[in-house]
C-alpha cells in the first residue's frame, strides 16, 4: 500500500446488543434511552484506534423510523447520535454520521423518489446541524436510492461517503438490483459523493476485488467496511468464525483504499488488528 489507510470503526448493532439491546428493539432509540451505552461504543472504537467513528443513526430517517413507530423522535435521535459519538471519541476520532436505507423499494413502488429525497434531506440536515464532520450513506442495495440520498446529503455542504452492498449475482459482485461496482461508482460520483465505498455484503475476502474495481472506476477516495464473512450457528448462537487477524490479513490486500473498517461480525478487536496490520 502506498499510503497508510485511515482506520474507521466496526459494527454497532452487535456492540449495543452486548450491552443489553434486545431482539427487535430499535438501536437508534438507544441514543435517547441508553446514551451511556451508545457513547461507550464510540469510545471503545476510538480507544481501539479508529480515526473515524460513525453514529448510531443508521435507521433514523423518517421512513425507517416510522416503521418502528419512532418518527416523532427523529430530530432528537439524530442530534443525540452525533453528540454521543463526539463525546465517546473525545477528540481522538472524527464523527461521520450514518444514513442507512429507507427499507422500502422504489422498484415495487413502496416509496417515491420525492419521498426518499425528503426523508434523506431531513435526516442529513439534522445531522449537519448537530455538527457531524461528514455524512456516510451506507448499506444501500439500490443505486437510485443511494444517488438520491447523496444528492440530499450534499445540500448540507458536508463531504458525503456513498457505499453500496455487493452481495448478489453469481460472483457476489453486484447489488441486489444488479448494479456493478463500475456503474455505482459513476452514478454516485455524478450525484456528488466525495468518497465511494462498499460495506456489509458477503465478507472482506470478496470485497478485495470489489475495492480494486471501484479504485479503477473513479479517482475519488475509496471506503471499505466489510463483514467478517458470513455467520454460522454454533451452539445455538449466531457466530462469525473469522478472527480479527484473518480479517486484517484480507484487509492488507486492499490496494489504494483510503478508509478501512468493519461491518457485521466485527468489534474493537478487529479495529486493533486493522491498525496493527495496515498502518
Amino acid at each position: 500500500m502506498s499510503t497508510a489507510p485511515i482506520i474507521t470503526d466496526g459494527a454497532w448493532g452487535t456492540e449495543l446488543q452486548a450491552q443489553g439491546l434486545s431482539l427487535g428493539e430499535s438501536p437508534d432509540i438507544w441514543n435517547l434511552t441508553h446514551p451511556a451505552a451508545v457513547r461507550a461504543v464510540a469510545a471503545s472504537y476510538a480507544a481501539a484506534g479508529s480515526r473515524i467513528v460513525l453514529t448510531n443513526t443508521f435507521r433514523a430517517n423518517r421512513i425507517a423510523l416510522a416503521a418502528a413507530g419512532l418518527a416523532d423522535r427523529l430530530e432528537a435521535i439524530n442530534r443525540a447520535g452525533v453528540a454521543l459519538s463526539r463525546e465517546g471519541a473525545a477528540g481522538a476520532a472524527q464523527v461521520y454520521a450514518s444514513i442507512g436505507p429507507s427499507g422500502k423499494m422504489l422498484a415495487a413502488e413502496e416509496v417515491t423518489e420525492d419521498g426518499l429525497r425528503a426523508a434523506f434531506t431531513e435526516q442529513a440536515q439534522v445531522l449537519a446541524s448537530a455538527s457531524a464532520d461528514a455524512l456516510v450513506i451506507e448499506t444501500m442495495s439500490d443505486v437510485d436510492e443511494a444517488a438520491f440520498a447523496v444528492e440530499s446529503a450534499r445540500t448540507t455542504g458536508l463531504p458525503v461517503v456513498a457505499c453500496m452492498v455487493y452481495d448478489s449475482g453469481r460472483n457476489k459482485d453486484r447489488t441486489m438490483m444488479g448494479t456493478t461496482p463500475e456503474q455505482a461508482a459513476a452514478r454516485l460520483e455524478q450525484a456528488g459523493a466525495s468518497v465511494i465505498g462498499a460495506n456489509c455484503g458477503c465478507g472482506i475476502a470478496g470485497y478485495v476485488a470489489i475495492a480494486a474495481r471501484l479504485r479503477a472506476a473513479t479517482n475519488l477516495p475509496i471506503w471499505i467496511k466489510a463483514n467478517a464473512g458470513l455467520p454460522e450457528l454454533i451452539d445455538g448462537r449466531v457466530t462469525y468464525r473469522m478472527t480479527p487477524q484473518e480479517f486484517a490479513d484480507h484487509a492488507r490486500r486492499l490496494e489504494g483504499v483510503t478508509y478501512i473498517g468493519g461491518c457485521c461480525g466485527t468489534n474493537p478487536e478487529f479495529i486493533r488488528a486493522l491498525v496493527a496490520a495496515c498502518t
Partner: protein
Amino acid sequence: MTDNDSVLGSLREAILKGDNKASAALTNDGLAAGMDPMDLVTHAMVPAMDEVGRLFECEEYFVPELLLSARAMKAALEILRPLLAASGAKSAGRVVIGTVKGDLHDIGKNIVSAMLEGGGFEVIDLGADVSAQKFVEAVQERKPQLVCLSALLTVTMTSMKTIIEALQQAGVRDSVKVLVGGAPVTAEFARQVGADGYGENATVAVSLARKFVQL
C-alpha cells in the same frame, strides 16, 4: 401460426418484459377468443416465469425485472383465478410467509412473496416482526403446504429456530415444509435450524417451493 399461438406468444412476451397492462389485455383477448384459461397458464405464463428465472440465474435480469415480471404475471392470474377456481383447478400451493420476530426488514420477503404469487401460489403474508405464535396460528388456521421465513439481521436469525421449534411443539411441523432465506442466511445455517430448504434468492425459493408441493 394460429391466432391462439399468437396470443400465447404475446402474453409470454408481455410477462417477460414486465408489461402488466399488456399481459392483462392479452389474457382478456385470449378468453374472448374462447381459449382455455389453463392453456394460457401452462403454455404462456408458466414458461414466461421459467424464462424470467433463467434470465435471473444468468444475470441478465435482476430484482427490478423480477418484480415487474411478477406483477405482469399477477395481473394475468387475477383475471384467470375465478375461472380456474370454477373449473376446479387449484393454486400451485398455499404459502405462509413472514419476516421473523425482531426483524422489521421486509424487502427480501416482499420480493419472494411477489415471485411466489407470480408462480401461481396463494400467499398469506404475515408481514414483518412476526412471532412464533403467529406463525403457529397461521399454519393451524390456513393449513399451508409451505412456511417461508425471512431475516436480514444476524441478531434475528435465531428466531428462525424458535419458530421451527414452536411449529414442532404445536404438532404441525410435519404438515409443512419450511423454507428460510435472507442476506445472512446460508445453506448450512438452514440445516442447523432444522429448515427443509434454503432460498438463496427469490427464484431459487420459487423452484424449491414448486418442488416441495409436488411431494
